[in-house]
């Protein structure tokens, strides 16, 4: 699961930034390493939300600065979604 989420997010980040997937690591910082500006931050956030059918809370967005943090948040949201379905 974790691997898949990470792979998908790396692919989204690669499409938006133009960096090759193998240049993007979990530790890559969006703003410092991947030249993400406000437009690209939105493009990545919207693409992730559409791909995983989740909603990232507005106030959480400023805390997401690395690829790993994005993966962690998406995994958390997917787990919550699954719990809700089971409940």
């Amino acid at each position, binding site marked *: 699961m974790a691997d898949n989420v990470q792979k998908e997010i790396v692919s989204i980040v690669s499409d938006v930034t*133009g960096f090759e997937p193998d240049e993007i690591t979990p530790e890559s910082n969006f703003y410092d390493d991947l030249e993400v*500006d*406000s437009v690209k*931050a*939105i*493009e990545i*956030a919207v693409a992730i939300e559409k791909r995983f059918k989740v909603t990232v809370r*507005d106030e959480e*967005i*400023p805390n997401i600065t690395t690829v790993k943090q994005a993966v962690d948040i998406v995994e958390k949201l997917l787990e919550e979604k699954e719990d809700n379905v089971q409940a």
Partner: protein
Amino acid sequence: MSRHRSSEEYDAIIIGAGIGGLVCGCYLAKAGMKVLICEQHHKPGGYCTSFKRKGFTFDAAADCFGAYREGGITRKVFEELGIDKKLEIIQFDPSLIIHTKEFKIRIWRDTKKTIEELQSLFPEEKTSISNFFNFLSLSNPATFAKIKNWTFQKFIDSFFSNKKLKTILSYPLLVMAGLPPTSMSAFLSGKLYYDFILDGGYYPVGGMQSLPDALANRFQEFGGEMRFCTLVKKILIQDGAVVGVKVENGDYITTRYVVSNCDARQTFLNLLGEENLDDTFSYSIKNMTPSISNFIAYLGIDDTFSHSYPPGTAVLFLEHYNLDKAYKAMLQCDLKNYCGYSFRTSKNNKTINILVPVSFKNKNYWKKNKQKFLDSLIEKAEKYSLPNLSQHLVYKDAGTPYTLYRYTLNYKGASYGWASTVSQLAVPGFKKPSFIKGLYLTGHWSTLGLGIPGVAYVGYDTAKIILRKYL
């Protein structure tokens, strides 16, 4: 196919010589790629062109630009491409006057001055006015990303309680993006404020046409090739990758990359064809809403006409404070209920453009209504802003949404690409459709880019992404 194949092969073909296509082309050619730009019109510019009638020069649609401060995106692009040295660029100050029945709010080059003037008119909102402009001047990307699901209404409500002030600060967005605050994305509003309202009013001496002309010349100096009156009919695909384009005269031209700077609907549904799209993708494109179009009056005036507004400054007039009502009237092309317009007198005081956002309707509607609409627009402007205008007119004509479509092929004459609503904010997969290798979209239909700063940014960004793979 081989019978028509043209002998040249390109690294990249760009469809459309609007500002986005020209900027992208310049960067690619500068980096050493062999680039061809195909433009269906006989001159470059898209919505950024000028034309001459009876000795008057009119800007066709775009009539100034923004983001030219130190570090602004337009300045960065012009400097990197060496355009800044080819053009003389001036800034009108104030760049904007928002004019209602009771207020004339001026937007100055110096934001501090704008803030102080607003604070003296609305003393009870003093702190909120500072906070509002400070927030918009912040460039931290994460702070802006936080408001991605907000409308401008929600955003502005979080600062102010005075309804008139809120309307005054929202009205420029209705004029510049064609949406009322209740549906306009807060993020895109923030971009417009930062790039265009707080740092606007820049103008190339000689007219807007000199901007695309300078870019087109620079593109050719970088080794790029330009073909005018060349309409691209198809983007050719083989094994999931771009291989070339077919142009109107039947020629096939081969290339590794295609960058489409024309409208996204046309790119996907016509140039690629639905046979190359999956159903969900086709469906989502067909269900997206384009931005509004414009009706633009082109007026030539005699030497004796004078009025109280400085030349070059855009004046945005609104008679009432109900932007939802204005928007409804725009959709119905109902000038009476819209009760607004914006205008700008040229630097030499010889021409005036008056603009009203309206929906597309169709060719016949405008054939029937153009003259009537133009005359009532002149009458309105005369009543509220420009007394005796009609007695000083030497020339009058107008561009309708159909005219805008005819010259640029933008879907429904849309002025700003897709409508800047919250739900259409960023469309994954448009800028670089993952199902076709080598195809990129740029310009105002590809992502979050409005106006000249927006498309200059997207053109630059598309080139950077391609070059990362090419070099």
